[in-house]
């Protein structure tokens, strides 16, 4: 317990929840800072103060386009990853509705383990008449490609055009990386555009949109050491969508409103740093990830490693612990200064455990008993060792008081 205190007292909390959000990098903040008090112009203003902002915006757009290997006109800066996803999906939907005088006609296909930003947007679009299909994943969380192809084919044959396929790049809970290139080949065979939610992939995976084969890609700042409340949509120029937020002609008429220059500069800088560190950090974190996985499997009995062993983000570890519930593990770790997340319903606003864990086939009990550790720039072997020590003792204690854990052994008097 002295160790815990030390960590808390030095305010060096042991953050293992980088997939929830990241701190802003100091270098990112430094580059964005002048755009608050000093260079505060509005890019639409026709004077030198505005021009500084306009050039800064243009420059940020070019820097991002270079990383994504696309045209700068194909970048739309948004106010979050969620807004970018909404723009992509509703942008397609509204275009279809306008063509059909209000009614949505056609199918959207997505996966079962998508982020709520995708699933709830599509659920909402269902109300306007669209047909929504959620493709299954296997026990590793990989999308069923055959089912995808069949569903596209069947819909097209039945005269229901498939308007868009949206499959995430990497999953936020179990870190599973989807085979985007193969998915895109299937989509393009049938002339269907592909959108991908790349929020969790941006820090560690390649972002060349041509190589990925995506027609739209969502990224955000809050997962890559940028600013919260920033995001972007890459949209291939051949894909035509409606705007989600109308007003001035900002962002190529796709997102009106005074541009968040500081946030956009932060986004460009964060992506550049990610790009530069990608290779090295992937190697470093993969090693730490494999170390942690091995050690947990060895030192704690009856655990389930959730997700794919290989097609996985380098910074994601997700385990279910038999016989105990995730929130209670999370809060005991929290007392030890360690910040993690859980798929348990108890730590969320809902009553059901993680839809991702259920989709890969976990029973409710194990889904409630999951803990996600996600690493980042300040994660070290020492911190992982400390985490495992605290994890072990928490698990041991909680199992002692768990009727589930002691079920087999339990007996009643008489």
């Amino acid at each position: 317990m002295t160790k815990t205190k030390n960590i808390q007292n030095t305010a060096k909390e042991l953050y293992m929840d980088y997939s929830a959000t990241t701190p802003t990098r100091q270098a990112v903040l430094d580059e964005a800072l002048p755009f608050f008090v000093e260079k505060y112009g509005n890019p639409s203003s026709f004077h030198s103060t505005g021009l500084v902002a306009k050039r800064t915006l243009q420059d940020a757009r070019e820097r991002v386009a270079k990383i994504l290997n696309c045209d700068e006109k194909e970048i739309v800066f948004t106010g979050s990853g969620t807004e970018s996803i909404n723009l992509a999906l509703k942008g397609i939907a509204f275009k279809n509705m306008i063509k059909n005088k209000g009614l949505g006609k056609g199918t959207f296909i997505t996966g079962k383990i998508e982020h709520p930003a995708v699933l709830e947007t599509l659920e909402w679009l269902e109300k306007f008449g669209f047909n929504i299909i959620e493709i299954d994943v296997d026990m590793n969380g990989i999308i069923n490609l055959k089912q995808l192809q069949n569903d596209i084919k069947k819909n097209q044959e039945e005269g229901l055009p498939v308007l868009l396929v949206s499959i995430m790049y990497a999953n936020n809970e179990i870190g599973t990386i989807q085979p985007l290139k193969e998915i895109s080949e299937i989509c393009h065979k049938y002339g269907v555009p592909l959108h991908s939610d790349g929020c969790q992939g941006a820090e560690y995976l390649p972002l060349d949109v041509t190589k990925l084969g995506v027609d739209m890609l969502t990224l955000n700042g809050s997962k890559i050491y940028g600013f919260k409340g920033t995001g972007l949509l890459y949209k291939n120029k051949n894909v035509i969508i409606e705007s989600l937020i109308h007003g001035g002609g900002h962002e190529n008429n796709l997102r009106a409103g005074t541009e968040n220059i500081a946030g956009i500069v932060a986004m460009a800088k964060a992506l550049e740093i990610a790009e530069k560190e990608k290779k090295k950090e992937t190697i470093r974190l993969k090693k730490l990830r494999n170390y942690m996985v091995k050690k947990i499997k060895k030192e704690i009995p009856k655990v389930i490693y959730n997700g794919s062993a290989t097609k996985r983000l380098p910074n994601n570890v997700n385990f279910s612990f038999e016989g105990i519930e995730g929130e209670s593990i999370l809060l005991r770790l929290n007392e030890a200064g360690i910040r993690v997340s859980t798929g348990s319903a108890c730590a969320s606003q809902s009553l059901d455990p993680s839809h991702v864990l259920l989709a890969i086939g976990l029973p409710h009990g194990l889904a409630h008993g999951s803990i996600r550790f996600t690493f980042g720039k300040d994660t070290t072997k020492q911190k992982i060792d400390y985490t495992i020590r605290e994890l072990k003792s928490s698990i041991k204690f909680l199992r002692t008081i768990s009727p589930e854990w002691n079920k087999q052994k339990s007996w009643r008097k008489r």
Partner: protein
Amino acid sequence: MKVEGNDWFYTKEVKEHFMNPKNFLKEEKEIKEFNGYGKVGNMKCGDVMEIWLLIEKNKIKDVRWRTFGCASAIASTSAMSEMVKGMSIHNALKLTASDIMDKLKGLPAIKVHCSVLGDEALREAIKDYESNNN
């Protein structure tokens, strides 16, 4: 505004009972001392609770429990176990979820119905005792 880094989600009382629960069953062999047993909840909801009572002369002499669930479930069982020790069966049967919550100085609304199973488990255990001793 208080935004301390290690502020807790639950009250101080919940935290204390969760971090240092009282009267839980440490070892299987303790069970044979007890004469009333109840179990409530299910895994789908994510909360299960077992309770063992030692009842003598209509009084709860001792109590043990086990709980699967979130911090508030564990804390509310622990708090309940302290409350009922020494209580008459008569009074114990009148214990409600809100009595337990009062003892914990409150719980988030969303936690109430799923995690405060203590009163139900208690009634189960008393019923079990009575059906075996009457």
